[in-house]
């Protein structure tokens, strides 16, 4: 009979299974390395994890049994999954290979197995909860599974950000973000890369957004025939899924020789704009389509022209969704390394100088110079050790994340302003 009908039996199976898993875990930990290589640290670590796991298991069961909270099993499942995540993330392996020629298992497998055990245990628990309830109560368990689907990405995101902050914060100081590297004094600064990425994003947005929104207005408000919309839609999707390096290649072959012959900020902006464009078109079209026709009719019936209707009614009510789409796009292009690598960046260049205190105040020629960019700087440090150590790489990553988040914050502000104004 599967699943077993008796509640106690199921619990017993669960306990037995955990016990067996723990045994396997301990075994794998012991077998993990060659006898000579077993370090006290690894054993202590595994022992600690095991004791912790068993202790927390007992504790959770105790809580569930005494308390009987709805979805108690599920709490247990979530707990186990969280534990699995922590184990997986906090105990890295010393070696890279999973097994060597002698058939020995490296500690990584031990960690991995703990991770897998905990994952399976958590899923088993979720299923138990599902089985143990009559059909009308299963709703709850389904809800919990969907919560789980939220928790996991949130956990991953949280981990990414905290880890980057922990690793990167030590190198971040005013000099790091406000100056260029000073080789003579051995100080690292990424201001040129910040300014470069900023210029690339702003430029790409300036090129892409009017075009994208314009295309969307044409498609939703003026294009009469369905096939044009479909054609443009499919084209935009294809463009969006084109690998970024291909954009880079096209820029390298067609743009670079026609601008200056070497890498330029302008070429980078244009190529990134081309990448941003399809998403802008798609999301803006979606946004404009979702504006109810009643608004359009109401406006036209008052004697307003189509363009006035679009300007005063349709666009303002779709700004929030359009902004969301652009944000997604910016999030993508801000971190793009491949396309700009060929056409816009060079490590160690100074920040683009658009403005100066003396005439002519605005310098267009900054557009025609190479720039540095955060993702590229990250790549250069990480891969080639150019311009800093791995610590600086984490610092650069942190700055990049913060920069993107700042764009997000700006977008969210705009969005909520218009949403409040819109009131539906």
């Amino acid at each position, binding site marked *: 009979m599967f699943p077993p009908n008796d509640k106690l039996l199921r619990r017993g199976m669960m306990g037995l299974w955990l016990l067996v898993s723990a045994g396997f875990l301990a075994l794998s930990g012991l077998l993990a390395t060659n006898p000579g290589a077993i370090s006290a640290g690894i054993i202590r670590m595994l022992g600690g994890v095991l004791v912790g796991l068993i202790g927390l298991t007992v504790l959770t069961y105790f809580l569930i049994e005494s308390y009987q909270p709805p979805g108690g099993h599920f709490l247990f499942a979530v707990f186990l999954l969280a534990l699995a995540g922590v184990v997986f993330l906090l105990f890295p392996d010393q070696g890279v290979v999973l097994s060597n020629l002698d058939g020995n298992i490296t500690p990584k497998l031990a960690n991995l197995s703990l991770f897998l055990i905990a994952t399976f245990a958590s899923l088993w628990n979720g299923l138990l909860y599902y089985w143990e309830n009559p059909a009308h109560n299963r709703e709850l368990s389904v809800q919990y599974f969907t919560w789980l689907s939220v928790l996991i990405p949130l956990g991953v995101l949280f981990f990414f950000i905290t880890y980057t902050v922990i690793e990167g914060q030590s190198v971040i100081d005013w000099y790091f973000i406000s100056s260029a590297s000073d080789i003579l004094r051995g100080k690292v600064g990424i201001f040129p890369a910040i300014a470069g990425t900023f210029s690339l994003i702003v430029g790409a947005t300036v090129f892409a957004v009017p075009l994208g929104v314009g295309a969307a207005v044409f498609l939703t408000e003026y294009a*009469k025939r369905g096939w044009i919309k479909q054609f443009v839609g499919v084209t935009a999707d294809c463009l969006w899924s084109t690998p970024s390096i291909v954009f880079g290649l096209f820029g390298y072959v067609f743009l670079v020789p026609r601008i200056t012959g070497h890498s330029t900020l302008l070429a980078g902006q244009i190529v990134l704009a081309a990448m941003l464009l399809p998403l802008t078109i798609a999301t803006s079209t979606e946004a404009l389509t979702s504006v109810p026709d009643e608004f359009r009719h109401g406006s036209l019936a008052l*004697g307003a022209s189509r363009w006035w209707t679009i300007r005063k009614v349709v666009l303002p009510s779709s700004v929030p969704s359009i902004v969301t789409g652009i944000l997604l796009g910016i999030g993508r292009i801000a971190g793009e390394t491949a396309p700009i690598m060929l056409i816009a960046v060079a490590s160690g260049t100074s920040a683009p100088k658009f403005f100066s205190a003396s005439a002519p105040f605005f310098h267009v020629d900054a557009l025609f110079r190479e720039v540095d960019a955060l993702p590229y700087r990250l790549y250069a440090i990480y891969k080639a050790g150019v311009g800093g150590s791995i610590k600086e790489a984490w610092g650069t990553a942190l700055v990049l994340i913060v920069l993107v988040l700042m764009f997000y914050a700006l977008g969210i502000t705009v969005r909520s302003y218009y949403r409040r*104004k819109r009131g539906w």
Partner: protein
Amino acid sequence: MVSVEAKRKAEAGDDRTGRLASSAETAVEIRDLDVYYGEEQAIDDVSLDILRKKVTALIGPSGCGKSTLLRSINRMNDLIDGASVEGSIEVDGTDIYAKDTQVSKLRQKVGQVFQKPNPFPKSLYDNIAFGPRAYKHHLRKEEGVLNAFSGMFSSGEKSPIDGRGMDDVVRDSLEQAALLEEVEGKLHESAMDLSGGQQQRLCIARALATKPEIILMDEPTSSLDPISAGKIEDLIEELSRDYTVLIVTHNMQQAARISDKTALLWLGELIEMGDTKELFENPEKEITEKYITGRVG
């Protein structure tokens, strides 16, 4: 050969064909109107006159072309793909389907209120000022820059339609739509926060702000609760003092209560038109009698 009696009846608008002999009283004159949606004919050879400053009700079963007829008068049918119109509609003696018709001006003169209240997601004030502001925008294009800037150095925004201050226009329109008391002090809050009935009255106020002569109403109470609907009905009676109202309704009691003239449409054809009282009490055609007593439809 027309008898004196028939002529008298025709002048009194009592010949049940919808046509009038004299045009001084006519706000809209529809002649031999056919409307097609692609291949499908929605209106078949309809001729009728709509009297100035009276409430005319269009009744008939679903899909009989009432709304189509209504939308033909402010050319909102233009927005529907494949719609085409034959015959003529004259508003104030001007053919609105003539080539040089300015649709914007027509729609400013012929306002429309929709079935579902559709205020813009803006403040009450901006909703009502929308029409005049749009008018100003078009004025700038049509009548030169000087007019558009004429109000620039005086204080406050002015309605380009009658030159009054926009604040006055907004308040007057709300007053006329019997909404001012309820929204006093909330003019700059979102119109989306109003109740359905208030939203509908706001839409009426919005239509009034462009100083229309004719107001088309497409089942304006069908999405409202009985009390809100009652308020709208009262309002329509009020409005008929100053405006020509054409209302499409499914509700025959409503038509009987508020309208002066009633027209019955059936499968795109005009069956009968006459004084509301006459039509309901003493229908001429059998089909009218059947419809108003609920035996067909």
